[in-house]
């Protein structure tokens, strides 16, 4: 546990020091601890640009990992995750509705200008979109016991959602389109200092609710019938899982764009590390590993030593997919490792 925190801390500072301008480790620590750096510009870069971005990485990694873990348990499916089951697509739809309907006044930058109100608007729209898709999938899961069918349906719902968005895009003006497209690349840097408190609050609420729910999540591992027989209120548990996963995935998607694969990869990584399915252990570890993986992805996206910044969405997929493949190969079979 101590080691995990230390690794996250080191990665966090590394993330602050790397970028188009390289800032030494010691200087970063100096700036963070409140003393003055030798160069005033470094101070500005770290505190105004890089700190919000690094904190966003921590929040996004945490939120996606926790949302993925809960969904895998709820659906009894090792392939469940925000990006796979169309939850992220649903959130994108919510954002598209906000961005593409209101004309120029509701463009991404206009929304930023609206301040907190606008931030909440994007957040709520994307969470509502996420909850819509997840609720739909869950409704179908009540009638369908087969996980593979459910997964295919989830992917189809995701496709329908994406199709609706692209039809919408077709009829949108180029300026609106550009905003939206940039948003879909995913960016941790887009979160401003004013938006950060909202992001922190939502992630924190999601984390706490999930942790409170960990006893029920554990009993769900035996299946819903057993969980019910042990006094667990299934309806309440399901609702809580959908609510928390939706706000977590929705917040990340709203603020940083659709970020793939962290949600599905991290829970598997953690399970294969600890060989346990106990959520009381998995939740804090998903927090740490999600944070660490997201920071690593952000470090790679900076392309250290260069001026280039790659879209974060591409990096998470590049890092995340091999992780899932590696876990499957290592355990021969995802089902037994799950």
């Amino acid at each position, binding site marked *: 546990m101590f080691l995990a925190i230390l690794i996250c801390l080191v990665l966090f500072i590394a993330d602050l020091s790397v970028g188009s301008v390289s800032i030494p480790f010691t200087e970063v620590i100096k700036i963070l601890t409140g003393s003055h750096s030798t160069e005033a510009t470094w101070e500005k870069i770290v505190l105004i640009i890089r700190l919000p971005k690094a904190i966003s990485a921590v929040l996004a990694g945490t939120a996606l990992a926790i949302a993925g873990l809960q969904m895998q348990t709820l659906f009894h499916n090792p392939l469940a995750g925000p990006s796979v089951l169309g939850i992220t697509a649903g959130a994108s739809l919510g954002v598209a509705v906000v961005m593409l309907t209101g004309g120029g006044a509701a463009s991404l930058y206009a929304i930023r200008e609206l301040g907190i109100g606008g931030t909440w608007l994007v957040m709520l729209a994307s969470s509502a979109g996420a909850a819509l898709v997840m609720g739909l999938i869950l409704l179908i899961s009540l009638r369908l016991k087969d996980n593979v069918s459910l997964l295919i349906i989830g992917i189809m719902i995701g496709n329908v959602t994406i199709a609706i968005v692209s039809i919408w895009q077709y009829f949108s003006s180029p300026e609106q389109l550009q905003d939206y497209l940039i948003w879909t690349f995913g960016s941790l840097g887009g979160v401003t200092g004013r938006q950060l408190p909202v992001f922190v609050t939502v992630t924190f609420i999601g984390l706490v609710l999930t942790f409170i729910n960990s006893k029920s999540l*554990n009993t769900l591992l035996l299946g819903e019938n057993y969980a019910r027989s042990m006094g667990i209120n299934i309806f309440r548990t399901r609702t809580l899982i959908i609510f928390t996963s939706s706000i977590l995935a929705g917040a990340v998607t709203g603020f940083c764009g659709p970020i793939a694969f962290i949600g599905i990869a991290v829970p598997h990584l953690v399970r294969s590390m600890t060989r346990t399915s106990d959520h009381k252990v998995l939740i804090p570890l998903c927090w740490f590993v999600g944070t660490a993986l997201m920071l690593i992805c952000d470090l790679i996206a900076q392309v250290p030593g260069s001026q280039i910044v790659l879209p974060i969405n591409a990096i998470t997929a590049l890092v995340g997919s091999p992780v899932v493949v590696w876990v499957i190969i290592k355990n021969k079979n995802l089902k037994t490792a799950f």
Partner: protein
Amino acid sequence: MEKALILYQLVIGYRPNKGVPVKVAGPIDLTMEDGRLNCLIGPNGVGKSTLLRTIAGIQPALSGHVKILGELPDKMKSEKLARLLSIVLTDRIGHGNLKAFDVVAMGRTPYTGWFGTLDKEDQKKVAWAIEMTGITDLIDKNILELSDGERQKVMIARALAQDTPLMLLDEPTAHLDLPNRIEIVRLLRKLTAETNKAIIMSTHELDLALQAADNIWLMTSDHAIYSGTPEDLVLNDTFGRTFTKKGIDFDKNQGIFRLVEPHQKVVSVTGGDPGAFWTKRALERQGFQIVVNERQSNHIDVTSRNNHWQWNWMKDGIDQSANSIESMLQQFTGEGEEL
């Protein structure tokens, strides 16, 4: 003292989303005492699972009610019901990173706080459940590494840790081989005797039910349910009537089911058991009717010396003998080489 379980005018069935409710069985009026093992049997599709699910509160009754220790489960909070009733289902567990111990410990869910931490009392109950079911060697193993029989014992230990006066088991012996089946039933009998729990299990193993149950609930295809001591149900023909089909006959004298082949030939068998017993079984399978008449020309005598069995008979006035049932059948039925 309240009865462990009372079913009062209970009608079980399904309520489809559209249309009229489908009655499966009832009205059922039954009671069950503490410390007894009750086997629920009946032909496939007669509603055994529906009855268990209704008692467990998973499925609502069409009318009437269930009372567990004098209380109505459908009026109870699920947490309270979880302290009265535990279940063992046929559901497979698909998660591989669960240790047997974790599964047993989960049985304490209704008693632990919001975080699920086990206190001293919980740990004592878990240790006791593990000891009672004899799974001490398995607790560190992954649930998916266990054999079907071992996993079933772990699930029973989990229900035991839940510490409820009533336990329901849906076909706990399905998919198990004979030694494991007997072990599970012995375990359940031990639990009723030592813990005074009331245990209901549904099963397809009729012979096992006849041997092990204190009481049998027999569901028939005509929506009725008969309750009684196994032996009474055999003697008053309820048992035979329910399960006798074309080609299968219930032998009341021996408490077993037989495949009935059309009798073409008669034969009599003498000699000591178990030799004579298994000889009769083999001959019956070949379509012989066993009669008690030594003067019949078709007569086989079974003798044993130093645990070696021998079969003697006469054919066309000549003494014949064989040293295994297989060779006896070959010669006697004339399907093998003619001597």
